[in-house]
């Protein structure tokens, strides 16, 4: 799940013009490492950046998007690592999906290995019409399946959008490098079964996401 790569100095790109003459002082990665302690399930290896995390951090700090070649390379790598469901069934139960979308638990240092993680979708997205407490960091997903013409998710005509949705949940960077959305499958945040339930919330015509 984790690539352990050696940490290298952040390049000069991160140093703002005008301060080029200043002495560097302690290196930021060393400062970060010295500033955290492991607690419960949250070990220090969480501070080791993957190449993707590092590239995105540098782009964010510079205030510039990734160059097209790097973005495309990261997207292809993410897409290649998407694992489709073992049994070929993409959709579970939207009612369970709704619970997962509501829950923001899991993976914090005050959670345990037994804590059932949620997807916390509502933190960033609108989904059903009934839930008015939704964030806006991501786009509204209300009518997600309906707008994309998914009348029957099992129909081959829907296969393309079903696969895309699975990929987006598995690793959002497959379609947009440096997306702010967590890699729910790739990072092991949700189980395959949970992902199927979220898929149903998004694509099942009976789901409150797709009913008026």
């Amino acid at each position, binding site marked *: 799940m984790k690539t352990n790569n050696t940490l290298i100095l*952040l390049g000069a790109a*991160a*140093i*703002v013009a005008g*301060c080029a003459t*200043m*002495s*560097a*002082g*302690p290196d*930021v990665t060393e*400062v*970060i490492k*010295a*500033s*955290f*302690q*492991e*607690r419960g399930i*949250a*070990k*220090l290896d*969480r*501070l*080791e*950046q993957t190449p*993707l*995390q*590092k590239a*995105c*951090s*540098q782009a*964010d*700090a510079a205030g510039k998007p990734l160059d097209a070649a790097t973005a495309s390379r990261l997207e292809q790598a993410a897409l290649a690592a998407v694992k489709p469901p073992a049994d070929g069934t993409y959709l579970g139960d939207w009612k369970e999906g709704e619970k997962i979308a509501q829950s923001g638990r899991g*993976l*914090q*240092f*005050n959670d345990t290995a037994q804590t059932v993680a949620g997807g916390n979708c*509502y*933190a*960033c997205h*609108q989904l059903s*019409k009934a839930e*008015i*407490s*939704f*964030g*806006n*960091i991501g786009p509204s997903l*209300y009518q997600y399946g309906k707008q994309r013409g998914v009348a029957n998710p099992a129909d081959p005509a829907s296969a393309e959008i079903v696969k895309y949705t699975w990929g987006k949940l598995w690793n959002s960077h497959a379609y947009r490098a440096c997306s*702010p959305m*967590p*890699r729910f499958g790739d*990072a*092991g*945040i949700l189980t395959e079964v949970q992902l199927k339930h979220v898929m149903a919330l998004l694509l099942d015509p009976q789901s409150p996401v797709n009913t*008026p």
Partner: protein
Amino acid sequence: MKWLAYGAACAVSLAGASALAQKSAADAIADYRASLQDGNPADLNAARGAALWNKARGPKNASLQGCDLGKGPGVVAGAAASLPRYFADADAVMDVESRLVHCMVTLQGFKREELTAKPYSSDGQKATEIEDLVAFLYDESRGMPIAVPTGHPKEQQAYQRGKQIFFFRAGPYDFSCASCHSADGQRIRLQDLPNLTKTAPAQAAFAAWPAYRVSQGAVRTMQWRLYDCFRQQRMPELKYLSPASVDLIAFLGVNANGGKMAAPSIKR
């Protein structure tokens, strides 16, 4: 009035109903916050903190009145608005809480490990001495302009590192501070997220901490604010007074320069 508007929204079909319902919820939250502005229980913390500051305590049986917060020994007014800054006696950049602990160690003889072992009160517990003292120190800077210095090379380094830490994506969620705090008009659920890379929102946010959190019934300090942000980012535990925390506060403070301190404030 608002409920009338909401009822009308229900009569209209789906088009804007959800957005309207959400707006009325947001308005209700704004009303709730406005109604809280008077009678901030942080005043009680600040009063206790003032008494602690002036009392001879610790192994050296000394008060904190000789503490130099950057404006000279014993000068408390406005000091919190100009921190973090470089202190020659410690050869380090320090924020309010770091400097407070430094003074409690050097002047009063308390042990650093003991002071930093449990800086934050748990649910339903009495405020810690640190929380009370911090409430007092910020109360003494209320209305003062934020003026976090950048003249010393170590202050510049702290700012630069703070900026990199702000954009540092890591952990199972790939989050950084910037995931939530680098765009305008963003919300988590119904909670507005200030864009801390921009002057006005950075000023408003920096000016408001520490704050009494009604949901927790406690004063929460700036160190705690960062600590809890990193918890939600799914990072390991941020150490109290760690160099990264001071760097981040320096970054936020410099971005907020020119604002007016309004802490301790009151939040949901």
